[in-house]
């Protein structure tokens, strides 16, 4: 019948067009992915070629110096570890507590929603603004001066909104049926939170925290504002000591004219990237364990 023929023919070409469009779309997505991967690959290859020869135990255990052959990341590495660890200690409990309050205790009122929106906004504020805040509040007003503590406090303010948001997500992901069951057994709100919600949300919270900390590891601008210095020949011994961090050290090396310092900088980048990769790997391992358990 004529009408059937028409349908078949139209269907045939329609199917062909659909398939072609699907294929084109898949290729487009693939290429976009490649762009990112290729760029990253180029960076890694370049950095490794430049910096690998300079990597050595000496490099890791020497302080910065005017002489490239004697320059090392010891101070910067120690400073980064100190600052990031301190940031973790300050930011983690405060953020988790805030997330618990917002999810479990806060009344469903417009004020709570306003707070949520504000926290989301804070997460997007440029880090230099936090630097300015840190300078005014911690270094000057509180008189903490240019110290590890100031740096850590500033970075804490920076990453707290991020941790709070991901912790809230993790807490929200705990099924309400679990809470119902716990309440049904005569548990108080605190018991439900402590024994059911936090244990279940913890892997997600930790993942978010580690990712936020690995961002803190790479921050430069706010730390410059609160006084991390470029040339430090000692490792921090206490909270009030001066310090430097890896990104800053790399930046100061890159600024030097001598080509040797470019290689040193590349080596420093490798160290920084290794640290970042380790932290991210930890986050992935945690996330996988969390998936497996549920």
């Amino acid at each position: 019948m004529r009408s059937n023929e028409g349908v078949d023919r139209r269907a045939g070409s329609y199917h062909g067009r659909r398939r072609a469009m699907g294929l084109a779309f898949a290729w487009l997505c693939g290429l976009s992915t490649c762009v990112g991967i290729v760029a990253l690959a180029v960076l890694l290859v370049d950095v490794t070629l430049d910096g690998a020869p300079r990597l050595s135990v000496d490099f890791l255990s020497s302080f910065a110096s005017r002489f490239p052959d004697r320059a090392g990341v010891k101070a910067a590495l120690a400073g980064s570890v100190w600052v990031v660890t301190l940031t973790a200690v300050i930011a983690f409990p405060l953020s988790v507590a805030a997330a618990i309050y917002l999810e479990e205790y806060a009344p469903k009122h417009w004020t709570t929603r306003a707070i949520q929106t504000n926290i989301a906004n804070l997460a997007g504020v440029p880090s230099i603004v936090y630097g300015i805040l840190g300078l005014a509040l911690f270094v000057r007003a509180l008189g903490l001066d240019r110290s590890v503590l100031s740096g850590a406090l500033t970075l804490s303010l920076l990453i707290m909104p991020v941790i709070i948001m991901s912790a809230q997500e993790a807490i929200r992901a705990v099924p309400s049926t679990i809470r119902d069951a716990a309440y049904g057994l005569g548990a108080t709100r605190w018991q439900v939170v402590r024994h059911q919600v936090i244990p279940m949300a913890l892997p997600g919270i930790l993942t978010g925290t580690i990712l936020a900390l690995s961002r803190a590891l790479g921050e430069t601008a706010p730390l410059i504002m609160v006084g991390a210095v470029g040339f430090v020949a000692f490792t921090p011994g206490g909270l009030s000591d001066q310090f430097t961090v890896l990104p800053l050290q790399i930046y100061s090396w890159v600024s030097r004219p001598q080509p040797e310092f470019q290689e040193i900088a590349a080596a420093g980048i490798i160290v920084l990237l290794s640290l970042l990769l380790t932290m991210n790997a930890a986050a992935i391992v945690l996330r996988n364990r969390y998936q497996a358990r549920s």
Partner: protein
Amino acid sequence: MATVYGIGSSGAAPALEAKAVSVSYGDATAVRDVSLTVPANRVVALIGPSGCGKSTLLRCFNRMNDLVPNARVAGRVDFHGRDLYDHGVDPVEVRRRIGMVFQKPNPFPKSIFDNVAFGPRVNGFHGDLDGVVEASLRQSALWDEVSDRLGDSAYALSGGQQQRLCIARTLAVKPEVVLMDEPASSLDPIATQRIEELIYQLKERYTIVIVTHNMQQAARISDYTAFLYMGELVEYGPTETIFTNPREERTEAYVTGRFG
């Protein structure tokens, strides 16, 4: 006007009495002026079409509606003569004495032992926890299947076993009343049968109120049945009467399958 028959003659003292209970969420009324008596050591079934308010009514009995943000409960629920919604009454204590089993099995992501032990622990129990766990698992007919693997995750159990675990968990705090919200609706027929048999055995020691959308289940296991429609109690009486000769036309239309 609801028709209530033959409860006083059961010879059992009332465990729970709802008096003019109404529940609304914001502007919507879910339960309207319901009064009924739950006799001790009996099984009372709440039936009715979807959305008739039976689960909402059930949650009034252990103050679970307190946890829903905009729920408002009016009327009183008397438990041993004392209104559960009175000012001085602690809802946490209420929930220990009136337990609840939910529709989908919801064991905690912990071991079988820790699931059953959770209730006693949060209620400050310091005695023989092993004994309590074993007794509860025996009462819910699960002990023989799990006694050798109490440390295993509760998620390793089948759906029917998980639900029996949830029942054991509820029994571990030694409630007087057990509320069940469609406990078998997510289980296969064999598992459902085992739960029904379990309920029949449990009523010797506990009072049970069960919500079910499955009329035949209510017919099989309950002593008294309440038919709710659009938030109102239409008829409440002995199960046999409801299913062989109900007084209200709407009840008869529902149980004969003419609507709902």
